[in-house]
Each structure stands twice: as C-alpha cells, then as structure tokens.
C-alpha cells in the first residue's frame, strides 16, 4: 500500500470504528487490520507521524464528527470511532513524547461544580482528542479553583465547561468570572443541554456549540487558522 492508501485506510477504520484485527466490530471487517495495525505499519514504514495523525486519524474522526452533527451517525458509532482513534494514538505516543508529533493545543475540560453528569463531557473529550487536541479531563463536580489551577499549569490552554442541569449551569458563571479575573486572555468554551448562545454571551464565555463538532470548528477557526 502507498502512504496515501495507508492513511486513507486508517481514516476509514476510524470512521467505521475498527479498532484492531481481533475486534469483531464492524462485522463486515472481521479479521482485517484495524487502526492499531495500520498505524503501526505506517510508522514502521517511516511515515511522518503528523501525516498519520492529521490525514489518517483526525481525518476519520472529522468525518464521524460531521455525520454526528447531522444525525447521520449516533453515540454508539461515535464511541466506537473514538476507541479506534485511541488505538492509533497509543501507537503515536512515542512520537508525541519525542516531539515528532504535535497536538493542536491543550484543552482543559470538566463538568462544573455541583453537577455529576459526564456523558456529554466525555463525548466532547473524545472528539477533541480525535481532532488533535491534548485534553486534560478534570472530571465532574469541578470547582472554579481547580480549573484555574490547571490553567496556571498549562498556560495558553483552552478551557471547556460542561453542565447538564439548569440548576448547575449558574456555576459556569463563577468559573468564567474567576478565569477572566486571573487569566483574562483564556478562551472559554461552554456546552450542555440547558445552554444557549444567549447564556454564553451573558456569562462572558467565548464560544458555545450545541455539539462537539461545533467547538472543534470554532477552535480550528480561532486558533489553528491563525
């Protein structure tokens, strides 16, 4: 296979959620190489890890993200794509450690204080990782001070706040205020079922999107294209 054929195949395996050769899913790809093997082959063949990352893994996740936004695929498909992506990222770990492969940036994510929901946050985390971001997941019920402490350890990181409940989204306001006071230039993204663009504007956050792909496209436009 040529380099382009390998990365195209990696992208297709990510899109279909084909983790590795032994994975029974998807049934029509049983016994075929998955993302794990193909990524290993690409790197062993001397391919630039950044090409594997961007043209293979990220390209596959991008297709899934766009289809997810249009309700052409659903959460089970997204979860399988993320698993396949992770199998490739494991192969790329030495390249990230050595600096041969680079993330787009660091994204600190967490569910705000008082809120113990994590499904939406986890989906955003998976999609951001799939889009080439290093994600630091602070988990659920995260106090404003914890976001700030992590931000101070990772200067220039983007912060993402999640809330599922109308009763807890008010805690986003406190977190945004603290970040604006201490590290004002930070980009803060917000998301979650009860949120709206109006609420995002009201609390002074930078971006709101109703789905993970919207945040990825915002960051691509705001950071990666500048």
């Amino acid at each position, binding site marked *: 296979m040529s380099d382009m054929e390998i990365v195209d195949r990696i992208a297709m395996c990510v899109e279909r959620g084909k983790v590795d050769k032994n994975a029974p899913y998807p049934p029509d790809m049983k016994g075929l190489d998955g993302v794990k093997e193909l990524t290993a082959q690409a790197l062993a063949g001397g391919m630039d890890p950044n090409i594997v990352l961007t043209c293979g893994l990220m390209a596959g996740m991008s297709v899934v993200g766009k289809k997810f936004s249009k309700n052409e695929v659903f959460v*089970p498909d997204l979860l399988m794509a993320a698993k396949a992506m992770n199998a490739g990222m494991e192969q790329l770990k030495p390249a990230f450690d050595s600096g041969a492969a680079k993330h787009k940036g660091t994204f600190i994510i967490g569910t705000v204080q*008082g809120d113990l929901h994590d499904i939406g946050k986890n989906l955003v985390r998976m999609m951001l990782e799939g889009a080439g971001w290093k994600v630091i997941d602070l988990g659920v019920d995260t106090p404003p001070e914890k976001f700030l402490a992590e931000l101070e350890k990772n200067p220039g990181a983007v912060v993402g706040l999640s809330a599922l409940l109308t009763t807890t989204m008010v805690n986003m306001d406190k977190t945004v205020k603290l970040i604006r006071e201490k590290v004002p230039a930070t980009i803060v993204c917000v998301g979650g079922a009860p949120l709206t663009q109006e609420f995002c504007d009201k609390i002074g956050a930078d971006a709101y999107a109703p789905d993970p792909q919207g945040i990825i496209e915002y960051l691509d436009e705001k950071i990666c294209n500048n």
Partner: protein
Amino acid sequence: MTAMTGQERMRNILARKPVDRIGLYEHFWADTLSRWTREGHLTPGMSLEDHFGFDLQMMWAFNTAARHDMAPEIIEETEETVLTRDGNGAVLRRHKQHDTTPEHVDFLVKDRAGWEEHIKPFLTADRARINFDGYRSARREAAEKNRFFVWAGSGVFELMPPVCGHEHMLVGMATDPDWVKDMVNTYARLTIDLMEILFSEEGLPDGLWFYEDMGFKNRPFMSPAMYREMIQPGHFATMRYAKSKGLPVIVHSCGYVAPLVPGLIEAGMDCLQVIEVKAGMDLLQLYRDFGDRLSFMGGLDVRVLYNNDKSAIDRELTEKIPIVKGNYGYALHSDHSIPDQVSYESYRYFVERGLELGTYS
C-alpha cells in the same frame, strides 16, 4: 361541560376525548420544595397533589436491583458527597447537600459476561422486590381523591444504565447487540412478572408510566434503527401487557427523542412526557405530526420561569396551550422539573394561567 375529576380527566386526555380542561401534573427538584417550605408556602410532608390540585398520582413500587435486598454500601464519604456501591455493583457518587443525579464512577458489568455472571441470574420476580404497602396506600389515596393513579417505574432502556453505565451500554449496541437485546428482554419479562403479581393481588392502576431517558441535546442516544432492533421489542412486550389490562401508557423521556416517537407509538405509547425544549424538542411540531394519535404532557420551557417574569410565562403558555389543547390530549407540565430559582408565586401563576388557557368552553 361539568367539572371532571382528575381520574376522569386524565383518562379522557390519554384517549384524546373531550374534557373540561387540560390536565395538570408536575415534577419538582427537592431543593425547590425545601425553598418553598422554608418560605412557608408548603409544610413538611404535605401532599403536593392536594396542594396544587394535580390530576394524577404515581407510585414507584418495584426494586429492580440485582441484589434487591442489599442496602448501598458506603465506600467513601466527605462533607459534600457519598460514594456507594449498590445492589447492581455500580459505584455511584451522590451530593449530600443538594439534589442531582449521581455520578457513575464504575460498574461491575461492562459487557455480556459481567451481565450474565452478576446480574441476570438474580433478576427473578421475587415478591420482596414489590412495595405492596406503598402501592396499596397510594392507590387508595388516589381513589379517595379521584385522581388518576399510575404505576411508575423505569422502562427497559432506563433499567440498563444503572447496571453497566451509558458508555458500556451504547458500545454494546454497536459491538454486541444480542447482549443489549438480552438485557431488554430480561427486564421486560421481570417488569411484566412483577406487575402480574402486584396487580393480581392489589388491583390495577389507571395507567402505567415508564421513565425512559433516551436522548440528550439535539439527538437520541441511538438511531431509530437501533431503537427498533434492540429496544422496541421490550416496549412492545411491556406496552402490550398494559393494553391487555386496558391500561394507557405514558412514556417519559428527557432529551431529544423526536426521531424515536413513531417507533414508540407503534409499541403502544399513548402519551409522551416531558418534551424537553432545551434539548431541541418542539411541542407544537410534535402536535402537528402526531397529535391525532398521541397525547402530550410537558413541552413548556421551564427556563421562562427562572426570571419569575409573568409576561414571559404568559408568552410561553399563550403560544402553545391554545394549539395543543386542540385534540383534548394535553396535560400542563414543565419541560423537566421546577428548579429552585422559580418562586412559588411564579409556579402558581404558571398553573393558574395555563389552566385558564386550557379550559374548554
């Protein structure tokens, strides 16, 4: 039309037959009730059905945990949270200070093998799973007050995440659909068997209410095709059982579930509740699409109550109630639960104005 009892009214609403006015029911966050009690509007332990004049009364009568006799074991406790392992082997963190759904920390069951070892063999229709006294007492009270009495409980979809978590369940839908089908069928069978015991001994309710959170923002957890393949067979089984007893079925779902509604109607759903606007659900569109064969409860954006602005509440009610009462199949309810930002006076206004608009001449 002369004034109807809650029981008569809800029975007709679920069948879209003429009524004197739209129905009334509501859910509240515990923090809201605490606030209103502190402010003197409510007294501890009082009946919300009596106080607000609700048409409906419900009772959760079943314990469906695998080890139903096991009290949650405390693993760790802080000033704010408590971490427990429950009868399904799930490790959950709950807030002690306020009301929220628990964080899913870990699950004993992550796949079919875990399900078959730790859960399935224990899901027998043991009488000890049934709260006979609670059901009897609630049923009697509802009858005395002429309220529509519903058996309430988790549906086949909602029974799975407490066992294996959403992520394992949803991955299972992709990688091992037969496992998910087995869970659905097992819980459908358990639910029907327990109902058979309870209803034969204590009498039928007026209807069934299944809680099924199948969506989140702007999309359901699964595609309509996955719903039909894996979940709908369980809905067919439980709802056909209901119909065999002459009982109408209310289905609650948070999140955006509009694409699943046709499949739910096929299975036997008579009323969709709660129609969460902030997740993308549109009560008026649902009414246009399905109002001739489906009743509705909810779909009124609770966010308009936050600011305690009567004109905003009025706008929301005026835009929707006169339309959705058209086929007699509507009950007033917020699109989720009333949070503690909402004043008692605002909620009272929501009810009074909603019922005023919802009264038939």
